[in-house]
C-alpha cells in the first residue's frame, strides 16, 4: 500500500521535499514506516526526537496505517 508523507522543518530538508510517497506492506504501523525512513535517510537518527501525526493527531509507533493515509513527520517543535 502507498502512504503519503508530509514533512515540515528539518524533516523537509532531510527528505529534500515537503511531500513523498512511500510503499509499505499492507497493515504496516508507524513504527515500521519510521524504520524505513531511518534506513532511507540516515540524518533522521541525528534528530533530538521524531513524532508522527495522522489525521492531525499525534500517533504512537503501534498505530496501524491504511492505504492513502497522510502521515506527517513532526521533528522537534520549536514554536514560541
Amino acid at each position, binding site marked *: 500500500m502507498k502512504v503519503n508523507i508530509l514533512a515540515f522543518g528539518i524533516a523537509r530538508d532531510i527528505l529534500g521535499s515537503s511531500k513523498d510517497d512511500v510503499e509499505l506492506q499492507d497493515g504496516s504501523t508507524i513504527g515500521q514506516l519510521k524504520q524505513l525512513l531511518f534506513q532511507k535517510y540516515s540524518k533522521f537518527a541525528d534528530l533530538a526526537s521524531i513524532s508522527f*501525526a495522522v489525521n492531525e493527531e499525534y500517533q504512537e509507533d503501534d498505530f496501524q496505517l491504511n492505504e492513502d493515509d497522510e502521515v506527517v513527520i513532526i521533528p522537534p517543535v520549536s514554536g514560541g
Partner: protein
Amino acid sequence: MVETECHEFVMDQGAGGTVVFVGTVRDQTQDKEVLRLEFESYQPMALKEMKKIAKTVIDRWHAFKVSIHHRVGALNIGEIAVVIAVSTPHRKAAFEACAYAIDSLKETVPIWKKEVFADGEVWVAAHP
C-alpha cells in the same frame, strides 16, 4: 496590534485578572547574532493543538477566556511571535494558566523556528 486584540478578546466583566505572555524575536541566541527568524507550521494540526491547550486552561483553571496566537513566516528582531492571554476569576490562576499555555505550546504545537545568522541557518531544537 494583535496583542491588544488578544487582550480585549479575553477581557471579561467577571475577571479578576488577565495575564498576557508576549514572546518576541530575540537578537541573539547563545551569543550569536540572529538576523531574523522563520516560522512554519502544520497549520490544521497547530490549531487543533492550540485548542487542546485552551480547553485545558479553561477546564483546569476555570478561565473565562483564552487567546493563543502565533505568527508564521519571516519575523525580524523585536517582532512579536506569540501572544497568549488568559482571564480568570483570580489572578494567581491567570499566571499559572498562562505559563502552562506557553510551556505546552512549546512542547506540542507543530510550529518550527529557523534562526537565520549571517553565516547560515539552523532549525531550533532539532538536534540534541
